[in-house]
Structure formats: C-alpha cells, structure tokens
C-alpha cells in the first residue's frame, strides 16, 4: 500500500503536512546559518526568506488542524520516500560558493517534490476530504514554485557564475 493510500483521514494527512513544512523551515534555517558563517550573506538571506515562507505555511496548516487531534508519529515512523520529507532541501546539494540562483534552483526542486507529493495524495487517498485538501495544497505548492521562477528571473545573469575563492579549503594534488 502506498503512502497516499494510507491517508485515510485529515488527522494523519495534516500530521504529515505540518512536519513537512516545519522540517523544510528548519533545513532552510540551517542552510542560512551555514551561509552566514561562510560569509555568503546574499545566499544566507535567500535561505532565511525561504525558511520564513515555510514557517508561514506550517502555521497555516496548524491553524487548519486546530480542532483535530493529530496523531503523534515518531520521526522515523513517517514513511517518506527518501527518509526525509520531500520539501526538505538536500544538504548535499549546497556548497559555500553557491549563488542565489543556485539556491533558488534548489528551492524550486523542493517545491516541485512537495507539489508531486500532494498531487499523488489528491488522486490516490481513500478519503474524499483528504483528496480535496491535498489538491488545494498541491495548487499552493505550484504557486510557490511559480513565485520562485519569477524571483529567479529577477536575478542578474552575471550572478549565474560561481564565485571565485582564491583560498579554497582544499588543494588536491
């Protein structure tokens, strides 16, 4: 049975949704911090903004859940396809020399995965109310994706180049 087919009611669906947004926010915060430390303030600010949006979305979902008792699920009992929620950025995809454009590309990939996650549930969940809400969330993720595309278009083209570090941490022979 797929994860989507296990979405039998709103409580379990919202439990997954809240954690997905919260973990996305946490990861963006982590990436913002590490970019701050590595003196990449523009990318740090970008990740900080992305964390803010994820947190707003998490808050919105929590408000929708206020009258429901969400199941308590241990982090390892969530059945995410890749071990982590689909909207969480892959930490292996970042480096200290990344630019805003690359950071936004990463964010777009995350939003795309989040969209796909909800889209599958909107088709396959056994509960009609879950399917309806999942379709709504999928549309929202698509809107986020569109906004990111627009945001990225506003970045000057010369920022596409990778910054140069004359003193990199490793000099392989």
């Amino acid at each position, binding site marked *: 049975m797929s994860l989507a087919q296990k979405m039998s009611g709103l409580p379990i669906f919202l439990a997954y949704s809240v954690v997905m947004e919260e973990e996305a926010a946490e990861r963006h915060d982590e990436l913002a911090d*590490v970019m701050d430390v590595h003196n990449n303030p523009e990318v740090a600010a970008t990740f900080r903004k992305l964390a803010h949006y994820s947190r707003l979305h998490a808050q919105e979902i929590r408000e929708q859940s206020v009258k429901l008792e969400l199941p308590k699920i241990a982090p*390892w009992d*969530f059945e995410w396809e890749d071990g*982590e929620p689909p909207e969480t950025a892959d*930490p292996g995809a970042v*480096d200290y020399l990344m630019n805003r454009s690359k950071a936004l590309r990463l964010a777009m990939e995350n939003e795309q995965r989040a969209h796909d996650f909800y889209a599958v549930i909107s088709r396959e969940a056994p509960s009609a109310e879950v399917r309806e809400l999942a379709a709504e969330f999928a549309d929202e993720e698509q809107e986020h994706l569109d906004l990111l595309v627009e945001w990225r278009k506003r970045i000057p083209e010369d920022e596409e180049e990778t910054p140069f570090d004359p003193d990199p941490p490793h000099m*392989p022979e």
Partner: protein
Amino acid sequence: MALAADRPPLKARDYKSDIKPVWCPGCGDFAVLSAITKALAFLERPREEVAMITGIGCSSRIAAYTRVYGFHGVHGRALALAGGLKAARPDLTVLVAGGDGDGLSIGGNHFIHACRRNMDMTYIVMDNEVYGMTKGQASPTTDADWDRSKLTPRGTGIRPFNPAALALTAGATFIARGFTGDPNGLAKILVSAIEHRGFSFVQALSPCKTFRPEQMEWKKHVRGFAQPPTHIGALAAERLHADDGMSTGVIYQTDYPAFQPGGGEPGDPGQFEAEFRI
C-alpha cells in the same frame, strides 16, 4: 523554576543552541545534530538532565550546538571526562561525541577501556574517515590506499580499523551503525542507544564534503543490516567482518551490569574534596 513535569514538551529545536555551526555546507555532522535533538525530544529528557561531552575536531564542536550541559574537552579524552562525570552524577544522561581521529587514534586507548568498563553512556563517533579540522589527513578509519593527502601521497598502506568490530571485541554492550543521509533512522538508533543500560557505541557514517567529496556517493551504497540485532558476540563478529561497512542498524545488544562506582548515588563534592586534600 517550573518542574519538568509542568513544562510543555520540548521540540527537537529546543535542544539546539543559538550558536551557528561552523561545519561546511553539506557536512554530515548537521544530520547527527538533528538526530540527537530528535532523539532527546522523543525521550522527553529535560535539558538539565543531559550532558554532551566532546573531544577535539569538527564533529566535537557539537557540544556548543546543543542546549544541554556541555564540555568541549581535550583531544581524545572525551570518554575519560564522561566517565568521571557519570561516576559523580549517575542521574545524568551522558552523551559523548567526536570524530574517528579523536575517538580511535588520539582517544583509542580510552575507547577500548570505556567499552569494557561499560558505564551507562552513549558514544557517537562521526566517522568521515579523515581529519577534517586540520585539513584532510588520514585517520584510523581511512582506507589504506587513500592518497589525496600530502602526508600520505601513496596512501597509508595500513588497514583501517573497523570501529564496530573494535567495540565488540573490547566489550561494548550496544553497538550500532547509522548514516547521516538518514537522520531519522539515526535518531531511532540513538533512542535505543540512550535507553540501553551500559556503554552504547554508535558509529555514524558522516560524509566530509570538503576533504572526502567522494563520500557523497555513500547514499547509493548504504542499506540496513539484513538481520535483526543479536546478543551473540560471535554472530555479531561474523556479520561485521562479512560486511563492507555500509550496513546500518543496531548490530549487537546484550545485558551486562553497567559499571557504576559509588553504588549509583550522586557523589558528595565535599567528600571528594576531603579525599584529595593534601
């Protein structure tokens, strides 16, 4: 101060400090921090009942990044410090963390004796098979033919330690291996390790993106152990030696009385002072 029972449950992020980690972007150690904080939140351990003791190295900085009692100690001596703390304060949950160099080279002697002593603590070795903080030299877990360091241009020529097998031989009563590419799976292992009564050893495969970029491929090779944990040492040894070091999960767990000097009561600082008075 509100009693622990009166406080709302802590979330994983409540166990993180406000200090920004200096680890490189993409470092596996971030996932260890995440796993530790998730494990502590799941176990609902009050922050003032947990201590994080570390040595020296990139990973050992984790003491500063957690919001529990912490001691960033001397290179390789984290286990000695932790043993002293546990002897004096058996009521604390003692976590010890460091890297493969800190724990298996500089601290190698402490490691084997901590295993056989079997004090009730959890030791996490973030294993990236390299000394990262000093810019990429071979460690005791580096493959013999790794030739990317100027210090070992033709490789070390020395077989690496198998940390889990070493722990088994030395007498650890809980042995597991986790992977930072699966922070939630690692958190689950840490919960079991912390709950185990005795010395728990957790090897966390933690890629170093800067000095061992090829380790970013580990994700393709890591998988769970095919068998459940065993309490039979010979069987665990057989499995460990047949494995390529990329299998994760709890490998071995057995019951053996944890060593606790003083009968498990917190020590009286005045008495200690009197004993050492000249």
